[in-house]
């Protein structure tokens, strides 16, 4: 389906709740509100016959921006749908009842950012090690901003030492 | 005195020592030809011996969940059987008077024992991947034994006797089996069955390295691993010799025939190496379908042609 027609049909169906942008010849961005998230996904997947590719998420300090990518392979362009799940407790409707292939990427978004997905059949961490505590969400801005990592740095090393070419001071951590 | 002679024949020449050395050299030929075909240099001639001696010096680890005695005994049983097959085959080729009626069947039966030892050793290892390799080897065994036996029977039927000596004498007077249509068909079937029996590509499903981390070999280390690899090496000597004896006139160390014998042997080994290098691994169901389908049909045609007289 051609790009112009896709944009027209999405705008016709959802009206004011979406904002469609086209930033490059191969990318169409659709900013959607939280309520129509699943309807938009179903529209793209079932009616317009796009393929579901993967998802991505970013933690902007007020909330988590979640995006899913739907390519139209024959016409060589992507339609990306984005939404903003506000903090605290970012929550979103899960699209895995419609697209089962989205189950794992939503589990990874949960494990990294603590984004809760309603109606997800099995929302638990997918890559986290068993020895981690249950509330370890490494990509959250609060965690990253405080520079907490598992390894304690007790060797007196700083980044400036490495970039300036000086030898490391402490023992191998 | 006779007993000492038997011991020497079984253990030194043409038994264990001779078969082990020549078998390991054959594996070297395999690796060198493979390397050359892939435009590489390849290992030096002493490589298989270095591998074996290195393995004899490594620690032997028996997993806690393994059946200890069976796990360690199986490679030795396989080695005994492979050495026996090699001894009988060399003796009937070099001294035809040691042949007896039924020795083709004896060698055929004894040649299955190394595969059985591998199956039992793999499942005794206590490793689920080892059990998986065992199951695959069993299915492969069901697959290739059928065309193998029919191809062997083709040669026997033509001669009318179960003894190697009569087969060799027949080929002396009537020309090698390869000269007839049924002989050629049976020879082709035997090459593929030998490929599966030795566990080479495209039929090395049982000990797939990248797929199931070594399959039946997975838990063997040190001395037992050296024996397992030695079994493959000795079978690498036995199977081409078996094919040559049945279809190509046997080996002979009289005069010029030394050269032709060595060339025959190297030709069959090179054919197997080339098949090994140009094919990917097939799945177990594809392999069994291959042996019960085209190979069985080919060997059945060869048998019928042999009965009719071609």
């Amino acid at each position, binding site marked *: 389906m051609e790009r112009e027609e896709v944009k027209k049909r999405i705008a016709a169906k959802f009206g004011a709740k979406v904002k469609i942008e086209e930033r490059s010849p191969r990318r169409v961005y659709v900013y959607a509100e939280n309520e129509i998230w699943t309807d938009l996904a179903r529209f793209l997947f079932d009616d317009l016959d796009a393929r579901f590719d993967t998802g991505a998420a970013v933690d902007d300090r007020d909330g988590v921006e979640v995006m899913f990518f739907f390519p139209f392979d024959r016409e060589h362009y992507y339609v990306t749908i984005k939404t903003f799940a506000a903090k605290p407790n970012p929550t979103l409707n899960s699209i895995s009842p419609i697209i089962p292939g989205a189950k794992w990427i939503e589990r990874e978004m949960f494990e990294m950012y603590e984004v809760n997905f309603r109606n997800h059949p099995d929302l638990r961490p997918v890559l986290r*090690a068993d020895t981690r505590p249950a509330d370890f969400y490494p990509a959250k801005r609060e965690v990253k901003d405080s520079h907490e990592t598992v390894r304690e740095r007790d060797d007196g090393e700083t980044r400036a030492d490495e970039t300036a070419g000086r030898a490391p001071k402490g023992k191998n951590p | 005195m006779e007993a000492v002679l038997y011991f020497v024949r079984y253990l030194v020449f043409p038994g264990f020592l001779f078969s082990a050395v020549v078998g390991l050299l054959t594996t070297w030929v395999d690796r060198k030809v493979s390397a050359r075909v892939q435009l590489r240099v390849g290992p*030096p001639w002493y*490589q298989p011996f270095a591998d074996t001696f290195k393995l004899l010096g490594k620690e032997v680890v028996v997993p806690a969940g393994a059946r200890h005695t069976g796990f360690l005994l199986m490679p030795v049983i396989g080695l005994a059987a492979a050495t026996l097959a090699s001894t009988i085959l060399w003796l009937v080729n070099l001294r035809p008077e040691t042949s007896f009626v039924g020795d083709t069947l004896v060698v055929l039966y004894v040649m299955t024992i190394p595969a059985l030892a591998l199956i039992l050793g793999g499942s005794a290892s206590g490793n689920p991947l080892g059990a998986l390799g065992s199951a695959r080897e069993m299915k492969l065994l069901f697959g290739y034994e059928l065309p193998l036996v029919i191809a062997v029977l083709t040669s026997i039927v033509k001669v009318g006797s179960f003894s190697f000596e009569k087969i060799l004498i027949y080929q002396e007077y009537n020309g090698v089996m390869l000269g007839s249509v049924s002989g050629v068909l049976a020879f082709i079937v035997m090459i593929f069955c030998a490929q599966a029996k030795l566990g080479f590509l495209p039929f090395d499903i049982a000990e797939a390295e990248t797929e199931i981390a070594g399959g039946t070999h*997975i838990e063997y*280390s040190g001395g037992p691993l050296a024996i397992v690899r030695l079994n493959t090496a000795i079978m690498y000597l036995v199977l081409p010799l078996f094919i040559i004896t049945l279809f190509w006139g046997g080996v002979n160390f009289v005069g010029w025939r030394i050269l032709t014998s060595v060339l025959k042997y190297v030709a069959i080994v090179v054919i197997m190496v080339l098949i090994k290098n140009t094919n990917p691994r097939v799945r177990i169901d594809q392999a069994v379908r291959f042996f019960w389908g085209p190979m069985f049909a080919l060997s059945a045609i060869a048998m019928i042609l042999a009965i009719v007289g071609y």
Partner: protein
Amino acid sequence: MSLALKALKKSPWVFHVNTGACNNCDIEILDCLTPRFDVERFGVLLVGSIRHADVLLISGPVTQNILPRLKRLYEAAPRPIKVVAFGACGCRCGIFRDGYNIVGPIDKYIPVDAYIPGCPPKPETIISGIVKVLNQL
């Protein structure tokens, strides 16, 4: 030197583990087996099972998930075993140093016999590293 030790120098079998690397080092190991460098002429074989290995080649910084398995692999290897830390990540965690699940370089948990630095190491470096490991025997 015993016969077995002399034979070990001529036929080191390598088992490769990736503990969280970006796979570039793994591709360079495959490079060494290609016709241009061809380490098989030294007897080096890549084996499929740790029980067959003489050299344990570990690439990557150790992630928390793989740490117990790495320890079990080291215990499962039949002695004598040589451990080689491969790549910048193997030696000192490389660019993954501040990762949230990196628990340290390899020699924090396993005694290492040789380090092959580089990101990724060139095949010449890899062969030189193998020679150094064999000379330690």
